């Protein structure tokens, strides 16, 4: 099932607030990230057709949702919106909430039993919404939206208000939606961790404007966006793939642009994609290849740039492997002791953090 892109160029004027946003959404999961009140929810509502005063054009493949080419009212757009407060119908049970959506589906949609099983809804079906917990309500709302058969699913802060355990429960379910149900996702969030664990692409938004869109690893690894992402420490994301598993030691070998890395705690099938984060504090520089240490991963690196930070500290940008970048922080004393300068070759001991296994 191919998912056509969603092109939009919309604006919305409100007292003391203006939204002006143009972009193209491709298949997969896109995260819309920005501070509270920057217009993320308003943009979702415009795309869904819930803002009567929204101006501009929206095109989904060759279907004009809004603009000179025609208009499609909200209830006929193949779009689903899961609201932050779930909004299950209180006069219907969980099962009837699902049925409401299924009876009104536009075009093809997923099988009811498949959705119920994928989201673990079977034990909840006979309950009224008032008897469901926050996480359970979110799962029912997600299932209800899927059963309506959307091509694009808009999720407004789907994990906010859930405890960490519930978030871990829902995260993989969201992650699996595009491949499993042929649906494209746009997820609004103000939590970086959610972006990293979920999204393929990231849109940064501020003051009602879209700043930039790029693959998550690219955008996250670029120093220009660290401030907006609320990141205090330099860090990079490396997408990788499982190449081998050593069951004796419980270690998995991953192939990344930086080279091969061994990590624990990943039990995915070969070729499964994995996202790694390497923060500056998890990188140690050494003149010798790391033989006599407890760190598993050592990679040859080349110093690219030195940047003075605060008193006594220097930020070092390193080139590693095939076009990968790495950051670390050292003291000025270490710069002198290791004679760090652009072009200098040495070894980095790194401890990558596994962020998520993409199914």
């Amino acid at each position, binding site marked *: 099932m191919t998912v056509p892109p969603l092109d939009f160029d919309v604006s919305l004027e409100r007292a003391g607030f203006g939204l002006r946003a143009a972009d193209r959404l491709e298949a997969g999961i896109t995260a819309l990230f920005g501070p509270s009140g920057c217009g993320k929810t308003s943009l979702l509502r415009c795309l869904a057709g819930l803002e009567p005063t929204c101006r501009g054009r929206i095109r989904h493949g060759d279907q004009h949702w809004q603009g000179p080419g025609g208009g499609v*009212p*909200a*209830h006929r757009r193949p779009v*689903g919106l899961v609201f932050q407060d779930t*909004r299950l*119908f*209180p006069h219907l049970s969980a099962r009837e909430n699902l049925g409401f959506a299924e009876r009104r*589906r536009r075009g093809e949609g997923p099988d009811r039993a498949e959705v119920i099983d994928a989201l673990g809804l079977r034990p909840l079906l006979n309950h009224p919404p*008032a008897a469901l917990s926050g996480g359970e309500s979110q799962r029912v709302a997600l299932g209800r939206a899927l059963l309506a058969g959307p091509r694009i699913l808009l999720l407004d802060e789907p994990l906010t208000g859930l405890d960490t355990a519930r978030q871990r429960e829902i995260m993989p379910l969201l992650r699996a939606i595009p491949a499993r149900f042929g649906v494209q996702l746009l997820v609004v969030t103000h939590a970086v961790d959610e972006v990293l664990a979920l999204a393929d692409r990231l849109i940064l938004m501020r003051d009602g404007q879209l700043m930039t869109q790029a693959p998550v690893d690219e955008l996250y690894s670029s120093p220009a966006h660290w401030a907006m992402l609320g990141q205090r420490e330099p860090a990079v994301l490396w997408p990788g793939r499982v190449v081998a598993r050593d069951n004796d030691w419980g270690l998995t070998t991953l192939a990344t642009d930086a080279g091969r890395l061994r990590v624990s705690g990943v039990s995915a099938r070969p070729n499964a994609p994995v996202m790694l984060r390497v923060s500056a504090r998890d990188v140690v520089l050494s003149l010798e290849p790391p033989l006599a240490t407890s760190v598993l991963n050592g990679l040859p690196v080349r110093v690219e740039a030195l940047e003075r930070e605060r008193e006594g500290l220097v930020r070092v940008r390193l080139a590693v492997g095939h076009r990968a970048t790495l950051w670390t922080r050292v003291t000025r004393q270490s710069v002198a002791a290791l004679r760090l300068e652009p072009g200098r070759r040495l070894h980095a001991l790194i401890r990558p953090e596994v962020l998520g296994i993409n199914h």
Partner: protein
Amino acid sequence: MNLTPVWISLQLAGGTVAVLLVLGTPLAWWLATGRSRWRAAVDAVVALPLVLPPTVLGFYMLILLAPQGPVGGPWLAVTGQTLTFSFAGVVITSVLYSLPFVVQPLRDAFRGIGPRPLETAAMLGASPLDAFFTVACPLAGRGFVTAIVLGFAHTLGEFGAILMVGGSLPGETRTVAIAIYEHVETLDYAAAHTLSAGLLVFSFLALLAIYTLNGRRRLGVGF
């Protein structure tokens, strides 16, 4: 004792509520959700029967429904019947007289639902009309019960406007309230007592049902 007035009253109240549900529900929806600048004016017109003496309403209705009147004339031409001093004329009068008692609870119930459930329904593929019947009306269920009971009970208690438009024709327009008046006029206190007590008990039970229901049920969970 002659129980025909009871039957007339029940028919009148039932018919009035039925007409008001059909006409008043869309009106209440429009008042609750519309953005028209005429809304305040229509709200005021709907509330007029609350403050007007029934004789004022009855007087104007008499003029409207008279065989030479703007409504009564065409009606006579089409049906061959006059509206004044007829059951149909009394129903039309009652519809106006009880309008606020049906429209206002419905309007407040619709307003209480807010736009969110309807947005949600639209996102699930429901057209506005579909969402109105499958989401808004069920969520406004308590408002409907209040509207039906108040509209019914208030029509039973109507006196002045009916007397002016319908007179007191036995078996046609003589309702319980008018029959009581006639019984008192003819000094038949026993019959007046029976009918009065019946109306009193029924009205009390109807209001008790509403207040019990409103106190117990709290709709709106999750919204």
